[in-house]
Every structure is written in C-alpha cells, then in structure tokens.
C-alpha cells in the first residue's frame, strides 16, 4: 500500500479489512496444513477431525472475501494499487480455499490409514510437507510485508518442492510394491503426497499474485519445474 492514506477513511478501512481477512484466512490454512501433516506423522486422528471440521471456516472466509471484493469494485471503483489489491485478494482467497480443501482431503485419508507406516516414508512426507508449510508461511508474510523479493523466492522454490514430491512418490511406490496389503494405504498416501504438492502449487499461485500486487508486473516465463514426476497425478 502507498504511504498516504485515502481521503475517504471508510474506503481505507474496507481495504484494510480485506487485507486482514486474507491474513486470517492464510493463518487458518497454515494451521490446517500443519494439523493435517501432524495427523499423519504423529498418528493423531483428533487433529485430522479438527481439520475436517475447520474447513468450513476457511470456506466462509472465501465467501466473505468475495463479497468484500465485489462490494469494493461496485462501490469504490478501485484504481491502480487498490485495484490490484482487490483483484489479488479475490484470487488469493480462492487459492487459499483450495489449500484448505486439500488439507481436509489429506485429513480424511489420514483417518483411513494404518497405524504403522515405514519410517523412511514418513520422513519423506515430512520433508515435502514442511517445505510446503515453510513456503506457505513465507508467502503469507510476504503478502503482509508487500515483499516482491520474498514472493519471487517462494515462486522459485516450487522447483525444490516438486523434487521432494517425486522423492516422496518413489518412497510410496516402493511401499506399494512391498506388499499387496499395502494397496489401500499406498493409494491414499499417493493422493496425500499429490495433495501436498498441489498445496505447493497453490502457494506458488499466491506468490505470483503477491508479486503482481506489489510490482504491477506478471512473473514471466514458465514456472520452474523439478524433474518430471514418475507417477503422474490426475493431470
């Protein structure tokens, strides 16, 4: 945001309110992702259930932000930085909502998993998820601080996430191959991994938005990709 406040104070407040709602929503997403990961690694089904329950909150935030954005556009006709602020808020909120959904999906699958998972598999999962968690946190900070350089860093580190995802996938495939009984858990774990990776993708989307918000420019070129995944997801 620019240094000078708006002449119209209520407009200023509406924009601040929108801003803080994004931050709050991001906080809930961070919490959901954290709990979902803990639910797997620490085998805590309470966490998983609370993630499933709390997703409703995140959905409500999305609706709220959408309404605020529509109101701002209809009533204030924002221009320049304010316009970017408003439009990116809409897009970030939909990315965050997807992150919430994915965390919920992870938690649902966690509840169906066996108690005992191989350690190296869990370690691989922890590596990728903590990476994604770190990125989500730093992009939310970047949003708060209006930092284009941090946003750029997050955007670039998606490469690393993809690599970690592939490693994790390999672990899961190994686990699948070990025993036919592992089929159910393995499939769930594949989806969990994929979901974490997609949370990473959404985080990258948010990074793009933050970059556009701050600079007014689009991050150009293809998003950096890691090694081609061995196991293809839905796409």
């Amino acid at each position: 945001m620019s240094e000078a406040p708006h002449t119209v104070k209520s407009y200023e407040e509406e924009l601040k309110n929108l801003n803080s709602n994004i931050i709050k929503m991001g906080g809930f997403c961070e919490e959901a992702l954290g709990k979902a990961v803990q639910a797997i690694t620490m085998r805590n089904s309470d966490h998983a259930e609370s993630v499933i329950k709390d997703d409703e909150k995140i959905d409500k935030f999305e609706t709220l932000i959408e309404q605020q954005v529509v109101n701002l556009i209809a009533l204030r006709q924002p221009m320049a930085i304010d316009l970017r602020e408003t439009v990116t808020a809409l897009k970030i909120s939909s990315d965050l909502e997807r992150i919430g959904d994915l965390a919920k999906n992870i938690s649902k699958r966690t509840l169906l998993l066996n108690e005992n998972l191989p350690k190296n598999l869990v370690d691989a999962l922890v590596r990728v998820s903590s990476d994604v968690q770190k990125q989500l946190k730093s992009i939310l900070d970047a949003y708060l601080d209006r930092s284009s350089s941090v946003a750029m860093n997050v955007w670039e580190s998606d490469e690393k996430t993809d690599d970690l995802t592939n490693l994790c996938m390999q672990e899961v495939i190994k686990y699948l191959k070990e025993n036919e009984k592992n089929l159910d858990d393995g499939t769930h774990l594949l989806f969990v991994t994929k979901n974490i990776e997609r949370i990473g993708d959404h985080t990258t989307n948010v990074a793009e938005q933050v970059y556009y918000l701050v600079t007014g420019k689009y991050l150009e070129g293809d998003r950096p990709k890691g090694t081609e995944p061995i196991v293809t997801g839905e796409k």
Partner: protein
Amino acid sequence: MRKNGVNMIKISAKNVDVFYGKKQALFNINLDIEENQVTALIGPSGCGKSTFLRCLNRMNDVIDICKVQGEIVINDFNINDKGCDVVRLREKIGMVFQKPNPFPKTLYENISYGPTIHGMAQSKQEMDEIVETSLKKAALWEEVKDRLHEPGTGLSGGQQQRLCIARAISVQPEVILMDEPCSALDPIATAQIEELIDELKKEHTIIIVTHSMAQAARVSQRTGFFHLGELIEHGSTDKIFKNPDNIKTQDYITGRFG
C-alpha cells in the same frame, strides 16, 4: 521525444511554459498527442490541464495577462509563431466547453454559424447537408430533425452538449478539444457523449480534460496527469490506471491525494 511506431503524432508540445502575469501556471510541458486517439488530461483543480488545453487553440489569447512560451507544433507548424492565423487555427481545432453553450439562436443557426463565417457552403442546399451530417455525427439528428428552427437553448443539457459538439465538427476540424464536457450532465447523457467521443476519434484527434478519472479511463487511450502545473506522467491509459510509475499519479487516481 518518445517514438511511437503505430500512431502518427498530431500535436507535439515542446517546453511549454504559461504565465498568468507573474504567476507561472505551466512548467516545461512536453507532450505528444497521437492522431485519431483520445488523450485524457487529468489532475486536481488548478493543475493547469485546462490551461494546457486552451494553449492548443490559443484561447488563452483572450486573457490579456496570459503569456505562452515554447513550441506547440501541429502539422509541422508552430502555432505560437507570430505568423499563425488564429482564425484558421481555430477552424482546424474545434473546442467543446464545460458548460453546454449553444448560441441563443435556432439549432440550424447554431450549426451553420461556423460554415458561414468560414465560407464553407456555396448554397442553401450545401448548408443543409452540412447541418444534417454534423447533427448525425453528433447523434442528435433523430431527436431534433423536426425542430431545427427552434432555439437551441430549449434542448436538455445532454442534447445541448451534443449540439455544441455538432457545432464544433461542422467545420471539420482535425482536432477537437473538450474541456470537461460532461461535468454538467447526468450519467445517461454522459454515456451518450462518451459513446460519441469513441465514434469521433475515427475522424478526429480528441483531447479531453476531465475530473472524472473513471471517465478518463473509459474514453481515452492515452492519459496525461498534471499536478501543480507540471506534467507528472503520461502514457497509455491502462498503464496509468493499473500501474502508474509515479507515486503522485497513483496517489491521485486512487484518491489519496493531499
């Protein structure tokens, strides 16, 4: 000077300074106006945008204490030269004012005045044609064709302003200057004028001064932002309104000024 590969430069202002007595109103303005484009001049009141507009057809001559320095080149001709004939300049550069100001005469006389004094019609028939085409171009013909000999002041505000536009285009100017043409009009009339501006830019170069940033954003392709007598920033309209370079421009268009 900025080069533009697509559009021809119609008007080029170089180092223009304007003084009202001892007070300097414009500081070293350099601005190129592209042909067949709508250029919007925005800025807070008293920023000099109207003054600049009135330099372009030398309407500032009317004000005794006003002095214009620098070059304003139109068609390779500096209009601030001593040899420039103001009457012919104003034939080429029409103007529409803030308040609709039709002559208190009939509609027909309002339109025919310019062609008459410039001797553009040889016969009554030719004049009738000029009146009709001007009114049609101003999208007013259908509304007034049955009452051409009624006073122009009897029209609604929006119709009056379109009459003034018709009057301006009756002498086929190359450039039309508009000084806040919609500030006295309701939104529907404003929309009609804006649509008209869009049509007119096919044949004329239009420069519009406006207080409504939304209007500048809607009608123009290029925008210049004036502040305290200086041209702070100019460029394509979407750039100015989405991502201006200058913080002053941004503060002004987002409503954070002062």
